[in-house]
């Protein structure tokens, strides 16, 4: 259990860094802002890595993540449409975008009695391209909304919290936590399925229904996250691998570890993004800048 203690200590250290380190000296106001930032960081990092772990387990493919399945891009497209039409990010549209791409990918990959895993990734990547093109069209058409969409695509935690969105963000986070708890209960089924679908079918798991539930719940989670902090990349792909490296293949452990490590990683990335420049640097930029060298080191070791 020392590993668990270790990642929790690192997590707490990241929280402390997130609150204490920054360009300005800490006072009551700055503290409020930093606490919100840290809460958003924990939420987004945790949820994205959790979804990544879940989907990698479900489809037995190390490449699967919110981005490669098209959900994140779909959510970003939905949110961009919201920005263009209503002037603000609409969580419902983001969710709809995420679900819409999810539905398409699922339909393409579905065969009698299961899902074709290779086709799933292919369909996901294809949909990502489509969504990116559509977002580009919106960016070109919008003009003035360009900045907002750009930051939505990279993701940032400096979101302004005010009277009109505070309650909604809290509500969305509570719904997400509920969904995470709901999905965590399937860790045993995931263990079996990641061994191979035949075994799972042999043990009486209805793979079709099970995949459907996991797939669309995670699409919902990703849609909710993107609507709050934007489409932060990299966390969902890499953190589950790190979790598996540390805790092995059992989903009971690595789902939880992904949650904690994802939060830790995003907090560290955000702290870095805050101190290296006076400007608001999208945290999605920093996640890959920091994450790639770390990942290479980890796998070469």
């Amino acid at each position: 259990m020392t590993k668990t203690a270790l990642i929790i200590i690192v997590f707490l250290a990241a929280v402390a860094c997130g609150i204490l380190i920054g360009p300005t000296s800490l006072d009551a106001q700055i503290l409020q802002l930093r606490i919100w930032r840290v809460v958003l960081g924990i939420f987004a990092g945790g949820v994205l890595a959790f979804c990544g772990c879940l989907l990698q387990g479900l489809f037995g493919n190390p490449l699967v993540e919110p981005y490669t399945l098209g959900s994140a891009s779909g959510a970003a497209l939905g949110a961009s449409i919201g920005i263009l039409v209503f002037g603000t990010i609409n969580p419902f549209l983001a969710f709809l975008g995420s679900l819409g791409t999810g539905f398409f990918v699922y339909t393409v990959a579905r065969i009698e009695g299961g899902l074709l895993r290779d086709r799933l990734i292919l369909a996901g990547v294809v949909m990502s391209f489509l969504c990116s093109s559509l977002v580009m069209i919106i960016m070109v058409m919008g003009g003035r909304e360009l900045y907002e969409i750009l930051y939505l695509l990279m993701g940032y935690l400096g979101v302004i919290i005010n009277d009109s969105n505070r309650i909604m963000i809290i509500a969305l986070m509570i719904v997400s936590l509920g969904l995470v708890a709901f999905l965590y209960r399937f860790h045993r089924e995931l263990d079996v399925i990641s061994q191979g679908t035949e075994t799972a079918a042999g043990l009486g798991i209805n793979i079709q229904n099970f995949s459907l539930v996991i797939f669309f719940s995670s699409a919902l989670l990703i849609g909710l996250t993107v609507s709050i902090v934007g489409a932060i990349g990299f966390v969902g792909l890499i953190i589950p691998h790190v979790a598996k490296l540390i805790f092995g293949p059992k989903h009971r452990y690595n789902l939880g570890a992904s949650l904690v490590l994802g939060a830790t990683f995003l907090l560290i990335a955000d702290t870095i993004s805050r101190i290296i420049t006076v400007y608001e640097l999208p945290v999605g930029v920093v996640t890959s800048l920091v994450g790639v060298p770390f990942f290479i080191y980890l796998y070469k070791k």
Partner: protein
Amino acid sequence: MLPSRHSIIFAAVLLVFAFLTCAQEKKGNDYRVVSLSPAMTEILFSLGAGSKLVGVTTFCDFPAETKKIAKVGDFSNPSVERIVGLKPDLVIVNLPEQGRIKRELDKLNIRTFVSSPASLAEMYEEISELGAAIAVQSAADSLISYMKSNLKPVVPAKRKKVYIEISPRPLVTVGSTTFLNSLIHDAGGTNIFGDLNRAYPVVTQESVIARDPEIILVLHPERITGRTGWQNIEAMQNNLVYDDLDPDHFMRPGPRLIQGFNKLCEILK
């Protein structure tokens, strides 16, 4: 050896012909102008040269006559093909935003007029140059003197710290290279992000709070009340947040600046 009579006559004919074409060019005076700059479009209309405009952007929405002029695209993405199709004698471009368009027009040997004023002085200079370029010099001179008499820089005892918000998501403000930065200074204030050497930097909420502005100008349609962490900013405390301003009166270096400038002086008094 003296030149032959024939060659003298030939030279004389050439000279006369040259004069004639020159005079004709001047007399015709029907320049076809495409303006990609909303501010310059307004300036052209107040110079009485609105009829020379054959193309504008979708952002050029003032005065009302601009509605009838052909659109060549929006401010950031005008279509070179549409511009060329209008056979303009002069295209007014904004730098740095339309650098790409300018390069393409240069390649096609289409004359461009560059507008990128960073201060009132530079704006006057541009109006004068534009007046010369399309032969409305006297109108340009009178517009300049009219604007000069209405835009008198203020030098207060103490400059108030101003925060200008262009967009809430992400937080976009104006940096040192913008016209608005210099306008705030002329009206007697100082931009809290005037030290950032960018046009429109994206800043953090923390830096706004740390720089504690005395006045906040909101140049987007959203309200900024009720933000977490912003309560103790001096401008919020004293309720000196102005969110009913028309951004075009401040962001467009043209005749309507007078309204914006007077409003600014009133706010900063």
